[in-house]
């Protein structure tokens, strides 16, 4: 298991922007910074890239440990690709500094021979076969030029990476004839060509079918298990949650979180969803639980998120508390004569955490005390009293 960033404080809960600043590592003595630089596969301080007055990447302090399988997540336009481009020497930072494999990003020639990358999709010569495209990159990297049997060694390596990504049989087809998934695989094969110490992949599972995604997931896991550092940006948060032990989350070019995935998820508050059999009991139940000091919310939407089965059309009382409270809450409800239709514990997964932290969904729940009253005293229908952004459905 990869440890969290040593230069930063331990993470508790995460919130956009306000807490991001609190999570920026405190500048330590030069000796410590130097050590962190060499220990980390990727290390940046104050990395900034401006386009006019807009900052695509804003004071980013990255620290990806060596040997980690690290996920790089953020909404569209968060600055992921710009960050990756800076790390690969394709664009220059406007401010800040960075090191990749201990070498400054201002000198990509010192480290790129140990880096394999696929950025912004697989891009190859459409008129050449997959094999010849890889051959060109292998020649450019000088693979097989040292020692004997240059050409045969190069061809053997190209064949190896084609087999590794499952393109062994289609290597001689033109790139333009490849499906999106096959192109993606070829991009990964190209990144693997130099037997890199650091593999940087931008959305590697784009266009892959479920079986392909699983294969790539397994492949990345194997590579990381063999000591390779893998830094992978992805929108498929379920994938990131499953395969990555380290996570970097950014939004608007700023750091929101970096560290263990488990640390992030553990910091999220567990919840217990209670659905009374009769909707009229929801407010009473919420007030009762609130009176014993537990934070509670009343969700007026028509369904439980992720609930299996047909829509229940019942309000949901959400209690912020550990799973162990579920039985107590059940007894409390029974004691008050409230029958529960369902009681479910819930710990937010990475996708929910991501959406909350990035502000995509930030307030679907309404505090019990802020509930709007309807004339007959019953629970207000869904959406009443909410602004349009809050009245939409979706996960919480």
């Amino acid at each position: 298991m990869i440890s969290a960033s040593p230069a930063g404080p331990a993470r508790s809960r995460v919130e956009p922007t306000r807490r991001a600043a609190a999570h920026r590592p405190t500048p330590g003595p030069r000796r410590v910074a130097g050590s962190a630089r060499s220990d980390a596969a990727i290390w940046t301080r104050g990395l900034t890239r401006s386009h006019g007055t807009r900052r695509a990447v804003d004071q980013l302090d990255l620290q990806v440990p060596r040997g980690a399988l690290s996920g790089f997540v953020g909404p569209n336009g968060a600055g992921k690709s710009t960050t990756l481009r800076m790390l690969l020497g394709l664009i220059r930072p406007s401010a800040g500094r960075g090191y990749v494999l201990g070498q400054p990003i201002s000198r990509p020639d010192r480290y790129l021979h140990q880096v394999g990358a696929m950025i912004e999709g697989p891009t190859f010569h459409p008129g050449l076969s997959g094999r010849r495209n890889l051959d060109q990159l292998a020649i450019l990297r000088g693979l097989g030029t040292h020692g004997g049997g240059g050409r045969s060694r190069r061809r053997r390596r190209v064949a190896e990476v084609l087999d590794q990504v499952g393109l062994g049989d289609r290597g001689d087809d033109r790139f333009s004839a490849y499906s999106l998934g096959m192109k993606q695989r070829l991009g990964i094969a190209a990144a693997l060509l130099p037997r890199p110490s650091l593999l940087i992949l931008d959305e590697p599972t784009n266009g892959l079918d479920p079986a392909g995604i699983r294969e790539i997931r397994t492949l990345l896991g194997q590579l990381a298990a063999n000591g390779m550092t893998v830094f992978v940006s992805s929108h498929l948060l379920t994938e990131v949650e499953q395969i990555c032990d380290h996570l970097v989350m950014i939004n608007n070019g700023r750091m929101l979180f970096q560290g263990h995935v488990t640390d992030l998820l553990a910091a999220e508050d567990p919840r217990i969803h209670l659905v009374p059999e009769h909707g009229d009991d929801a407010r009473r139940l919420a007030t009762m639980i609130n009176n014993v000091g537990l934070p509670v919310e009343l969700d007026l939407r028509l369904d439980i998120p992720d609930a299996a089965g047909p829509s229940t059309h019942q309000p949901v009382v959400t209690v912020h508390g550990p799973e162990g409270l579920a039985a107590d809450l059940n007894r409390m409800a029974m004691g008050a004569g409230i029958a529960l239709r369902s009681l479910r514990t819930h710990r937010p997964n990475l996708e929910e955490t991501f959406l909350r932290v990035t502000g995509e969904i930030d307030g679907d729940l309404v505090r019990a005390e802020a509930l709007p009253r309807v004339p007959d005293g019953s629970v207000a229908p869904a959406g009443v009293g909410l602004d349009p952004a809050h009245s939409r459905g979706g996960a919480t």
Partner: protein
Amino acid sequence: MINAFRAEWVPLLRRRFLLGTLGAVFACSVLGTVLTFLSVGHTDFDGDPVTAAWLSEPGGLVQGAQAVSILLGVVALSVVAAALAGDHGHGMLRNQLIAQPHRARLLAGKLLALAVFVGLVVAVATVVSAALAFPLAPVKGVSTAAWHSGAGLAALGTGFVNLYLGSLGYAAVGALAAIVLRGPASAIAVGIAYALPVEMLVSRIYHPARAWLPMQLMQEIATGGAAFATPYADALLRGCLYAAVMVAVALVYFRRRDVTS
């Protein structure tokens, strides 16, 4: 640089591209040679008389290829612009820069490979023209005796070198346009538009400009100093300077520019 040079040959030698380019050059060369020999007794494009005696001289063997020097230049410009701008346009440059982060070495290797390829193109044109000249010569009463002599072979070699240097000048324009514009279609269009109509218009309106406009000088070099009044040596010096400046500007652009999507 040698790796970049070798790698560039992979796309250049793909069958469809190679056959297409050489086919176009073959057609241009045949056209130029046939028209040159059919012009005996008439005048050429510039209004100069074409005679059997003139073609019977040692240099007559390469007149067909030199007649289409502009077309060869356009082919060179297009090939270089398409290759360099295609790397940008298709996004392949990102992969290449990750594989070879020394940008100057990468571009130098590419330019060297493209220069050799242009040499191959011009060599094919010269060989085709020379081969076709022999069967066409008797038709118009042109003697081939001088062509077989040492002077004839020397003239053939000199003609090839001049055509090559002129084509490289066009290629330099293509390289600069490709690096600056980063799209194959726009690079070729702008390059050809400048090389042909723009310079031709300027030089026809203001004749002394022929001695200083880059493409006019390349034309002078390609024809061995036969096109305009500018001495060949002057044209060669100025043309080389222009080409060096164009390549240098392209190199500076290439090194400093961000590589984005």
